[in-house]
């Protein structure tokens, strides 16, 4: 709600904003705006918990849902297509963590092949998307085929990511420390970066840049925005506003939950 209020009255940013009560509800309770991850995670959790007895069927269902969502048969509101598309990846890792850990444990196995396959496939997919957009193609068959390819590519991307990070994390300590810290603080970065970007829009909209500055600017801005998010988060914690980043609970059990929350990432 704070996010919506900020963008209703705040600086400009190319993002979806609610224009009335109905869209406001969509924004809060459905993956309508750029904050759709916040809705996706509880939805995915509930779906996975409900279908835990039927893992393979549920995964197949998630795959079909993703393809149907990408096909364009049904109109998708806001970021709903992304919400439906990514359930498959979440569900796969939730139901088959031993496979994920297996990929991590065998990080060196076929690593080069996986990286080359990913680079080629991702480049081809980017080209296909470009041609699809430039020719304004909107066929259900093509959309569905691209949806399937996108799922396969995402799967390959996960494999490459797991292999690379498992291999590099213990070796490049400095970078691992930075990304590890970022990884443990994704919520404040996700929630705060868009308002900060809109403020930076105000600062730099009319600024002239040389070629080299414009080339390097996104990299510098990326570091700056993430750093600002983390600093702002620490300030909010200092001001006792940590509740802004915590899930609602009905009982006084947050401490007990916090103690057990990361057990699954622990090596037994």
């Amino acid at each position, binding site marked *: 709600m704070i996010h919506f209020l900020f963008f209703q009255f705040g600086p400009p940013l190319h993002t979806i904003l609610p224009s009335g009560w109905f869209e406001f509800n969509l924004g809060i309770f459905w993956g309508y705006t750029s904050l759709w991850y916040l809705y996706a995670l509880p939805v995915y959790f*509930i779906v996975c918990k409900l279908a835990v007895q039927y893992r393979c069927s549920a995964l197949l269902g998630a795959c079909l849902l993703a393809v149907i969502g990408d096909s364009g048969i049904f109109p998708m509101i806001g970021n709903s297509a992304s919400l439906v598309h990514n359930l498959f990846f979440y569900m796969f890792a939730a139901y088959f963590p031993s496979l*994920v850990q297996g990929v991590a444990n065998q990080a060196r196995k076929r690593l080069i092949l996986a990286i080359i396959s990913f680079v080629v496939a991702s480049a081809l997919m980017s080209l296909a998307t470009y041609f699809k957009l430039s020719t304004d193609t909107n066929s259900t068959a093509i959309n569905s085929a691209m949806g399937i390819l996108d799922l396969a590519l995402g799967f390959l991307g996960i494999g490459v990511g797991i292999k690379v990070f498992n291999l590099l994390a213990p070796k490049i300590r400095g970078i691992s420390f930075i990304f590890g810290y970022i990884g443990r603080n994704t919520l404040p970065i996700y929630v705060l970066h868009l308002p900060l970007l809109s403020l930076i829009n105000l600062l730099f909209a009319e600024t002239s840049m040389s070629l080299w500055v414009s080339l390097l600017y996104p990299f510098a801005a*990326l570091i700056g925005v993430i750093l600002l998010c983390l600093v702002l988060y620490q300030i909010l914690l200092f001001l006792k506003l940590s509740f802004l980043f915590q899930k609602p609970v009905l009982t006084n059990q947050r401490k007990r939950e916090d103690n057990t929350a990361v057990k699954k990432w622990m090596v037994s």
Partner: protein
Amino acid sequence: MNQEERLLWPDVAKGFAITLVVLSHLTSKHYPMLLVQVPDYVFLLWLGVSDFLAPIRMPLFFAISGFSLLDHLQNHGPLFGQRKYYPCTIYTSYGI
């Protein structure tokens, strides 16, 4: 609970994925505001980098989030009948 026992790669991978999310929003929502000053090919270059890494960005983020669900799926009992899940269930149900 010793922090050194915690697996490092899921945190690092998730950190990289959220960095790509910020880069994606930066190139698609903020960079266009500078278009007057930024040459088209530089803009397309960064947009291309972000697009190229898109198959890692969200799939990896959600896969790591799902991976961290293991404990809840195995050890925390059924969804219904547990007060700690009520807010999440009510929220999701209303959304659907």
